């Protein structure tokens, strides 16, 4: 396949960026999108040019490091992560636009790399349980009803990639935060911090400068892990409950 790429290039956080056009040839349909970018970078390095910086780690769709807005879609046209997106989703001769996540809470570091440490700080604010660490406990020590276990698991699938923020016209982190809150709040292990977790994580989310939710649903459409839109309503419910309880105290 022969492709024309228009890629966002930006030297550093302070510099102005712009789209640059590159031609790549000899791309196989079986390559992943990131392998296609590797091909481009090898050529750039041989020419003595600066390779395109992009984030990646596991390349198997589980770590949440890869990003990229491809032709206006976070993680591209398929419902998967960019590392699991294959070139067979494109046609020979296509022009593909590649841009970084856009949100004021995710400033561009270089080219296609953005700083997603705002997510880390939301997790630090309450995305954990206070449990003794050590050897794994006996699996049946704490019974969890099946529907709750399923609900928790569905939300535990979030890999923290930030596609939800990138896709949201308001740069809102509600889907990510709701996935993390719901995952732990429904489980007995998460019960001791049920109220403080949602209040503190939402407080941190707001402090990071993410936008509010207008329920456009773009986030859930973009999410490679299928975190559903009603998760947000479930977190709203948790927040209102926690705020009511705090008022009674």
């Amino acid at each position, binding site marked *: 396949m022969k492709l024309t790429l228009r890629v966002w290039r930006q030297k550093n956080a302070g510099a102005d960026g712009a789209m640059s056009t590159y031609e790549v040839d000899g791309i196989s349909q079986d390559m992943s999108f990131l392998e296609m970018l590797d091909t481009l970078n090898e050529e750039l390095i041989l020419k003595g040019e600066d*390779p395109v910086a992009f984030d990646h780690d596991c390349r198997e769709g589980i770590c949440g490091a890869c990003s990229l807005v491809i032709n206006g879609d976070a993680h591209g046209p398929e419902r998967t992560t960019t590392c699991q997106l294959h070139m067979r989703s494109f046609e020979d001769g296509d022009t593909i636009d590649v841009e970084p996540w856009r*949100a004021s809470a995710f400033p561009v*570091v270089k080219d296609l790399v953005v700083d997603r440490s705002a997510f880390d700080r939301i997790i630090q604010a309450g995305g954990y349980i206070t449990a003794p660490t050590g050897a794994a406990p006996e699996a049946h020590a704490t019974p969890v009803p099946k529907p709750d276990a399923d609900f928790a698991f569905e939300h535990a699938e979030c890999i923290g990639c930030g596609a939800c923020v990138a896709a949201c016209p308001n740069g809102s982190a509600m889907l990510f935060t709701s996935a993390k809150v719901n995952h732990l709040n429904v489980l007995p292990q998460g019960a001791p911090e049920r109220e403080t977790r949602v209040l503190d994580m*939402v407080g941190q*989310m707001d402090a990071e400068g993410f936008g509010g939710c207008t329920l456009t649903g773009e986030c859930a459409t973009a999410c490679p892990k299928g975190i559903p839109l009603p998760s*947000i309503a479930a977190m709203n419910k948790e*927040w209102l409950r926690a705020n009511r309880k705090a008022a009674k105290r």
Partner: protein
Amino acid sequence: MRSLAPTVISMALATRPVKGTAPGKRPSPARSLWDSTIGKKTVMAVSGLIMLGYLVAHMLGNLKIFFGSDEFNGYAHWLRTIGEPLMHYEWTLWVIRVVLVAAVVLHAVSAYQLSRRDIKARPTKYVHRRKRASYATRTMRWGGIILALFIVWHILDLTTGTVHADGFEHGRPYQNVIDTFSTWYGNVIYIVAVTAVGLHVRHGFWSAAQTLGVGNARRERLLKTGANTLALVLTLGFVSVPVAVMTGVVS
């Protein structure tokens, strides 16, 4: 390996000082209701539902115009006597007015502040534009502005009579309504506004359910159908009055 340097910097960023509230130092529940995005959205949902409840009653009241001037004017008079003898003449009406003004102001201020925040959170547009589902958000914002302007015009037209077409008379609402809908601009403004109400309620009712945490996957169909029905009934109910005046059914 020039590109390594920024990576190192970005790792260092993860340890930059934490913004936000320190654990154990949470704002009071009342403060969070106004300061947090979820809280402010709750204020919008509750004030929106109060206005929605009022609109349903208002629409039903308007339909009385089909039963003649005596019934319509009598109904308008009754509105001023609700709660008597406990309440004095017009007291209840004033209570309703104060609640509604509070709802409109809280709703509009929250809408403005949240919209400002949302726009700031996403300052850079994507170069590759695609049809975004920000359709609902944009209709809510523009529709809201249309509604705000309409509310002002509507009160100056039919409550105070300040901008009324000709010969406004207090206590004779039947005639006043017919005057308004005998002008082309009266009809246009009104029909645009009630269409905006329909669109606003269509997304708003469902949104309010999500905001208040009563939405879930199982109730999705029910809430969406409810929102559509409510929007349609409200719009048709309101629109029937100018249409009836225009076609001479009510004169």
